[in-house]
């Protein structure tokens, strides 16, 4: 019954990915992003400078936003982790936290570029908010920051492919 369709959560993910890809080679932002990746299960990417890796953290039920009905509308909140990786030239003298601040700010700006309705992610969500940034330390060989974004959406209780307002 669902072949060829995308669940609401995947539509949101693809819209988020589309917005992040607007940073690729875009001269209007301070950060010149080189790659945006949704990793596969194994061996999918190599860390590089100015790279964004988009992954999913958790999907939680939000009971207070559910609606009764036939079928009822269930509300969920998905948290995406936007990992902003930095492996800049080791001879570069710029403070790394300067680059981190610019990268995180550009990510937030490109996602919220459509001022009035950015949080709906192409009318698939009812709310969205950025959570606390998590800076990387360079122990793994590269630096950067993770920008989490929590997006709340509703679907039919019996059909996660159908969005509800």
């Amino acid at each position, binding site marked *: 019954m669902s072949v060829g369709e995308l669940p609401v959560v995947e539509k949101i993910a693809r819209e988020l990915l589309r917005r992040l890809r607007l940073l690729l080679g875009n001269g209007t932002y301070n950060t010149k992003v080189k790659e945006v990746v949704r990793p596969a299960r194994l*061996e999918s990417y*190599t860390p590089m400078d100015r790279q964004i890796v988009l992954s999913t953290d958790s999907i939680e039920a939000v009971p207070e936003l559910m609606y009764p009905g036939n079928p009822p509308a269930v509300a969920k909140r998905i948290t995406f982790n936007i990992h902003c990786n930095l492996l800049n030239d*080791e001879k570069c003298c710029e403070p790394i936290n300067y680059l981190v601040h610019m990268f995180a700010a550009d990510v937030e700006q490109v996602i919220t570029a459509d001022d009035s309705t950015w949080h709906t992610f192409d009318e698939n969500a009812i709310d969205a908010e950025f959570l606390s940034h998590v800076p990387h330390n360079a122990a793994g060989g590269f630096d950067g920051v993770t920008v989490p974004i929590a997006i709340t959406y509703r679907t039919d209780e019996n059909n996660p492919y159908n969005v509800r307002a």
Partner: protein
Amino acid sequence: MTLHDTIKADAETVFCNVSDFAEVVIYYPREGDARDIDAVVVRQALSLPNEYSDSITPVFEVHVSNNSERGITSEELNLGGDSLFFAVRVGEESSMRSITQLLDHDEGMLVLECR
């Protein structure tokens, strides 16, 4: 030839000998031309790059001699952009892997982490 010179020479001729355990990989420096080098590639288990990551990547420990012809010199190495081109698994096609850390080095050898 002193013992120091002998060991340093052995780094290229013995430890990074393609007739034994080394293989030819391509070194792509951040700036400059790529070149073939000899390296011992230790293919390790997949792991998280750091504690903030939630996707795993392959990890490699790569041993190269500290010279500018068939290895990488410690002064030319740049941990912000240098890459190596080799197969993730033996027999597979090669792919680009970033050099993420310099785990150890001396006058004769460099031990690199690639992901």
